[in-house]
């Protein structure tokens, strides 16, 4: 049995990788993948907590998070399609209509 601390540490590393990816990458699809990475890091944290406490609640939460992540991806990709239809690009640096 792996020590939950290792799982938790891996989760933290994955989360930071995801976060840095969100900050630095220009392609929206890569950013979406990074967000997915962060969500999975959170799931891993749930799993680690479930092992640590010996409680199934964490597993259940992880399952919920996976379901929500799937729908989030669907919506995110739909948004990108809509944005592409309008701006003909999904490079995030070029999409700054919210700027003052």
């Amino acid at each position, binding site marked *: 049995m792996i020590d939950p601390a290792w799982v938790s540490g891996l989760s933290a590393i994955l989360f930071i990788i995801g*976060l840095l990816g*969100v*900050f630095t990458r220009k392609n929206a699809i890569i950013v979406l993948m990074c967000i997915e990475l962060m969500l999975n890091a959170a799931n891993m944290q749930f799993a680690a907590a479930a092992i640590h406490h010996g409680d199934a609640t964490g597993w259940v939460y992880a399952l919920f998070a996976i379901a929500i992540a799937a729908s989030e991806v669907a919506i995110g990709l739909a948004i990108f399609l809509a944005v592409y239809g309008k701006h003909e690009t999904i490079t995030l640096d070029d*999409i700054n*209509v919210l*700027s*003052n």
Partner: protein
Amino acid sequence: MSGSSSSQIVDSSMAEYAPLIILLPLLAMPVILFLGKIFNTNPTWKNTLKEGGIIALAAMGGALFISLVIIKDYIGSFSNNGDIFSLTWLNTAIWEGGSSVTSIHFGFGIYIDHITVMLLFVAAFLCFLINIFAIGYMNTDPINEDRNHRFYAEFVLFCAGMLGMVLSDSFLWLFIFWEIMGLCSYLLIGFYYERPSASSAAKKAFMTTRIGDVFLMIGLVMLWDLFGSLDYSVVFDTANIAAVNPGSLQLALGMMFVGAVGKSAQFPLHVWLPDAMEGPTPVSALIHAATMVNAGLYLVARMFPFFGAESMSGELVDLAFIIASIGGITAVMAAGIAFVQDDLKKVLAYSTMSQLGYIFTGLGAALWLANSLDYHDPVAQTIVVVAFGAALFHLFNHAMAKGMLFMASGSVIHEIHHAHHHLHPDDHGDDDDFDAQSMENMGGLASKMPLTATAMLVGSASIMGLPLIGGFWSKEGIIANAWRVALEDPRFFFPAACVLVGAGMTGFYMSRMWLKTFAGKPSNEVAAHVGPTNNWIKTPLFILTFVTLSSILLAGMGFAHWAPDSEYSFLSEKGLVEGIMYELGHAFANHDTFFFILTYIAIALGAILGPFMAMSLFGGKLEDGEECKPWFRPVIRLNNWVYDKYHWDNSGIATSGLAIALQNRLYIDKYYDLAMVKIVAGFSNKAAEVDTKIIDGTIKQIEDKSQKISTTVRSLTTGSARDYILWVAIGTLLIFFFIWGVA
């Protein structure tokens, strides 16, 4: 409320329909308004339905019918006093420290007693008759075309308000309906809103009555504070009244009386009523003479149980004196101003104020008697009931006579207007110099409008108190009771003297009005071409003439009903004829020498001196060859005789300072304007300064600062989603560290 009322429900199927009296006109309002909007130019709507007039008439007819049945039930059995219908609307409670202290019910109910019955008949009957008159007056005037539906809608809403106020079973609902009437009064005075004078008169009426209404509301809140309820069944309960501090109650009732002063146009809140004559004449007849101005009287009459309660004995006499004095001042002041008015409707407006003053004096005297006389003495009780009855009876007589006078004046104005239109067809609208309401443009109409002249004569006689006609019976009662109180409380000499002098003044100005309009020669070609009026206008005049003439029958019956167990109960013991004979004997051959002399002084002043002076000043012969109807030929002959023999020129008096002051309404309006300019405008200027310097200054500072901050913040919004996420991450981290640090 429902518990106590269930035992008092009248055993009659008609009583259940009592709410319909209010609902019928209330529902007619939207019907007329929307149908009028949709079918405005439809010929059926115009000619058959009279632009809504027939719908209004049907609603008022229904209301009158149910009212009459309920009144008949009531008169048949006096024990049916109190709530006859009640509906709980809202149940709540005052909570204090987690437990309910007082439970509060708001509900609507119908409350019937002798005051209600009197006012209900006056309101329903006159609303119905004036509706008939309005169809004849409004629909034949081209200026009103296509907007009469607005008139009828506001008219029926007013009727609903008046009937609701009379029937409701709590001061809360009284206040609600009171305000509905105020609104309708405003809307109807401003019916010709395109005229600046009409719209400013509407505003003046609304604002002046509003002053009174604020006091009324304060009074009601105080009453609530004392009793924890505004339902009549609670506040009129003798046990509840006994638990109340008399001083606080007097203050609350005094506040409510100020409301009544505003609504009934008494001094010093009387300034709105003469201006309110800008409205169409049916409105003047209904609202500003016959019904709405009675609302204030009704409110004061409603206070009777407080004054009659044993525990309040002798405690509320000051308020009774104030009520009587305000009435006395108004009676004389308004009569004086009426001396010099040339506008036919304004004479009647001031006459209304004066007569309402009489009724207030009568009520004040009755309330004084109720408050001071021994509660257990049957003779004293009879005196109180008769005094109270006299005031209410004068309300009845005045409403009938004044409604009739206004309708007759409307008929005159209407025909003068038509004659003018006929002679000068190029003159459209009312913007020209010709004033159809000025008595200077009338004269000699007695032979041309016989029915109108008769109605005006009977109405004037009733207001003047000419023996045997209408107001005579009640006016004598008011004067006698004011003096009866004055013999015991010297303060009352003031109102008592006022009403006695006022009787002579009434005789003068009413005669002057009749003579200037109907006697003499036509003052110009317009008056010479006036023709008789139409049947819609004639019918109510005809009916009211008979009602006014037959009020002696009501007087004979009335005493039996107001004091069923006393020496006055003739209807049950002796019959109507004896009742009338007693009335006659009481008026003309009183056993008490003081009242015997008083009666004859009042008759001499009101019926002889006043008309005599008017005839010698303003009388005049009809045009040669013009014949009037036989029944008022004696009046014309008497007038000719007095005018020939005693005519004197009054130009010296007419230009005196007093006359000019009267013409300027004693400068009261001017003082109000001055006070407005000095106090209100000064205060407004100060308030404006505070506003610009302190309040605006602070806000400007805040605005400047926040603008600077926002310019700084704006540079952070790059529009790139990743930057925002970065900020979110930093923020989350900061919160995390903050919580960590705290923990």
